[in-house]
């Protein structure tokens, strides 16, 4: 019997998800033994044409990481969808936009202007030329993908069977998913989030939690925190209450507040709104003036509460 075919692709991502796959260490050999890897731009030299030449639905599983930022990302999303039986949004970018989607808080024009004209490190030549999708050169016309106005998650462009959250997904969780698939058990219902828990990060966090009554918020550099007590109790904005479990509270264990990369917990539509709800319950103030002062201490609320989930949140972007 031929081995099942596996493809891995990266769209608008940093490459961390690919490293996380390799971080399953020697078990990667088991993956190579069990699957025929047909496409993996970061590690193997296959071309897009090779995939186009394949029959539709001939890839058994495609782990697709990265958000949809430009026309190439979108083209490949459609291509991998057509060729794969099971398409998995792998990692926070593909699942919910992640860091690239914070670009949805500004416009394409503002981004290009900053990068190619205004930023101090930019040497402006030719009056600051923006990248063009088509450029004529003596050797012929060259083409680069078109950058889109809005960053999207994978499931906003094509249908997706499963999601594996995390920035990046934890190697242990990745292996658990692969092991499950290899075991030949029936696959979970379409739309499931795999490789994660169904509670919140707080549930896995070993720090001691007390009755929360917050009067002040601090940035991490402003205080020295007690390593045994809940970070939120100590005034650090920790996304734990609004974040899905699955990472075993990696960041809080390393004295860093949860940043929310595993996305919203089950049945929660909007991570940022849930965080507002959670913080509203634990702040200890009633006077408007005092409240506003406390809120002022939360640096960049939208960027903090939606650091990973903006593209997949209800509002998705800043209104132009």
């Amino acid at each position, binding site marked *: 019997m031929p081995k099942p075919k596996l493809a891995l692709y990266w769209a608008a991502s940093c490459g961390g998800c690919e490293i996380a796959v390799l971080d399953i260490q020697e078990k990667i050999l088991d993956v190579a033994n069990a699957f025929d890897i047909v496409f993996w731009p970061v590690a193997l030299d296959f071309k897009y044409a090779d995939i186009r030449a394949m029959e539709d639905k001939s890839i058994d599983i495609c782990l697709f990481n990265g958000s949809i930022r430009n026309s190439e990302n979108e083209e490949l999303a459609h291509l991998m969808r057509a060729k794969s039986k099971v398409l998995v949004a792998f990692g926070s970018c593909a699942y919910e936009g992640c860091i690239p989607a914070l670009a949805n*808080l500004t416009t394409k024009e503002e981004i290009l202007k900053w990068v190619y004209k205004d930023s101090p490190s930019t040497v402006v030549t030719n009056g600051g030329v923006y990248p063009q999708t088509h450029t004529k050169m003596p050797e012929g016309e060259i083409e680069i993908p078109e950058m889109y106005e*809005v960053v*999207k998650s994978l499931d906003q462009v094509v249908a997706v069977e499963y999601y594996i959250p995390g920035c990046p997904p934890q190697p242990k969780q990745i292996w658990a998913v692969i092991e499950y698939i290899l075991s030949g058990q029936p696959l979970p219902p379409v739309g499931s989030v795999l490789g994660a828990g169904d509670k919140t990060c707080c549930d896995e966090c070993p720090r001691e939690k007390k009755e929360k009554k917050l009067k002040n918020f601090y940035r991490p550099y402003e205080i020295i925190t007690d390593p045994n007590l809940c970070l939120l109790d100590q005034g650090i904005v920790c996304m734990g209450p609004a974040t899905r479990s699955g990472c075993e509270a990696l960041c809080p264990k390393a004295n860093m507040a949860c940043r929310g990369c595993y996305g919203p917990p089950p049945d*929660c*539509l*909007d991570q*940022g*709104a*849930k965080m*507002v*709800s959670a*913080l*509203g*319950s634990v*702040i200890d*103030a*009633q006077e*408007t003036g005092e*409240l*506003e002062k406390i*809120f002022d201490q939360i640096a960049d*609320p*939208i960027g903090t*509460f939606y650091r990973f989930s903006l593209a997949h949140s*209800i*509002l*998705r*972007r*800043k*209104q*132009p």
Partner: protein
Amino acid sequence: MTFEPKIIGFLCNWCSYSGADLAGVSRIKSAPNLRIIRTMCSGRVDPTFIIKSFQLGADGVFVMGCHLGDCHYAEGNYKTLRRIPLLKRLIKDFGIDPKRLRLEWVSASEGDKFAELVNEMTEEMRKLGPLNLKIQ
């Protein structure tokens, strides 16, 4: 055609909904733009409900609860008191005018205040114009 704002009202069962009821039985006229959803407590109004309302086409969201100290569940409205201003900051960051979200305390005996507030909010939203949210 003139613009008629759509306003979603989350009213607590014990005070504000009764206040709205009183306005009705007292035949106090008020703008018909408020679509009321009754919740057991203003503290039950998850910020998600409010954001979802905007997504589904609301031009404004009005949350009403019992006066502070009068909450049927002792402190539900204190949570609302803290959530709404924080959420206002968040929707402002999303490029939505924070005036589109309003919180007021209306007791069961304040039918006239209810009608006044609804008229005020409706006028405010009429001035701001339709929200026309762009999601993509």
